[in-house]
């Protein structure tokens, strides 16, 4: 099963840091997401420079996780040469993760 089937997500950015939320649609799926979507698995899924520094925060009352990935955006929005300089697409990429 893809994470996309049981969760939604949004990416934000500050400077060179990406912030990706992952939120369960249903309370009953929260334990699985909490257990499986670890910082290590997120780092492995995104790979490359994204994998360097992943911190995870949990908000169980909202069935939500918040991932903070430092150094993820090749210098930040004004300086980056990336097509998606904000990294806005990353949340959807993360939802491709298989559980």
């Amino acid at each position, binding site marked *: 099963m893809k994470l996309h089937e049981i969760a939604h997500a949004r990416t934000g950015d500050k400077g060179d840091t990406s912030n990706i939320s992952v939120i369960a649609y249903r309370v009953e799926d929260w334990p699985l997401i909490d257990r499986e979507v670890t910082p290590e698995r997120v780092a492995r899924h995104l790979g490359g420079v*994204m994998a360097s520094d992943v911190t995870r925060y949990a908000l169980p009352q909202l069935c939500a996780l918040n991932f903070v990935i430092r150094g993820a955006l090749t210098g930040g929005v004004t300086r980056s040469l990336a097509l998606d300089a904000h990294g806005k697409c990353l949340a959807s990429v993360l939802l491709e993760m298989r559980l």
Partner: protein
Amino acid sequence: MSVVRIGTGAGFQGDRIAPAVDLAERGELDFLIFECLAERTIALAQQARLADPAAGYDPLLERRMRAVLPACARNGTRIVTNMGAANPRAAAERTRAVVRELGLPLTVAAVTGDDVLGLVGDSLLTETGAPARALEDRLISANAYIGVAGIVEALDAGADIVICGRASDPALFLAPLVHRFGWAMDDWARLGRGTLIGHLLECSAQITGGYFADPGVKEVPDLAEVGFPLAEVSEDGTAVITKLPGTGGLVTRATCTEQLLYEIHDPARYIQPDVVADFSQVELEEVGPDRVLVTGGSGHPASGQLKVSVGYRDGWRGEGQISYAGANCVARGRLAAEVVHRRLADLGGRILEERSELIGLDAVAPAAARGAADPSEVRLRIAARCADEEAAERIGEEVESLYLCGPAGGGGVSRSSREIIAVASTLIPAASVSVRVELTERIEA
């Protein structure tokens, strides 16, 4: 119990104007807030001001004011905005001219003091660890994220329209609540809750169904006419987030949760000028159609330091794109990239950083997440950060020459170059920043 109604008129510089007019006319608002400054916008505004001392404020300021002021004046709705950007005084002057022309009895205030270019020389940049002064003449701006003090002072003095530059985004919303409810500036729990409300509202439609739709999974009704949000705030800092009847979009626990976590990093420590807000125990409850009750926000004492956004010139950026389609398009795209890369070799050290990618294949998703199947078309994109404008121009020139000298079947070239204004961060003591309020005399109708 009195409730303050506060709405969002804009969540970024280019946001739509019609939903703000709708809120001004039908929202029965006490306050309408326009948040128009992204991290990079202020540095670009400073660049505009350097070129023209009368410029540097939001280009849409006049259109926005003209559109909403008649309804705001009629309904007693006061405005707070950071559309002053790099030049709040000029923005207030321009607004005053609109007010006069429309014949409205409104007072306009400018809040200044966020420009700290003269104070940051010795401050160390977070990104490099070097003092700001090491950037020498490349340094063009330094703006502190100021808190609510100046805005509250202006509202207390009777301003109907308060225009500031780089205030923190949630402070634009927190200030009217502090003004109206008289919250103490060491009531950390209430300041945290007001910050929470500001954070939820600051991105306009991002909490009412904008940036949310995922067809088949997350449906959003009438997205094309998505409405902007408003909050009904109680004295204890709890609030209901909602939107106007008849507008598109939706307000649910899910839209509010996405916005709650947007860009905040550690939910227990969302560092703001007036408070370190704590969102870690927030509860969201759907209490009616498009109505979400927000409780559980809190806060801790402010850090005593202000974040400063430093803008500096950082070379030039050149880019060129060309499309390839059909049989073997990926290989032809890769060959085209190789040709351009070799052609640029004579620029040597004038190219500081270069990247090429095939849009539709490897441009956006990180390497680990990419699929293997070949697409039916790709667009080659080559971008480089260069030391000078001429080198940046060469990127597009070389891509354009692929028309006759590159692989088979390339089409649709586009090219561009522009100066890069980079943004870095530092911290300065809050006590070193002096915020000032300039109130113009009331213009009588």
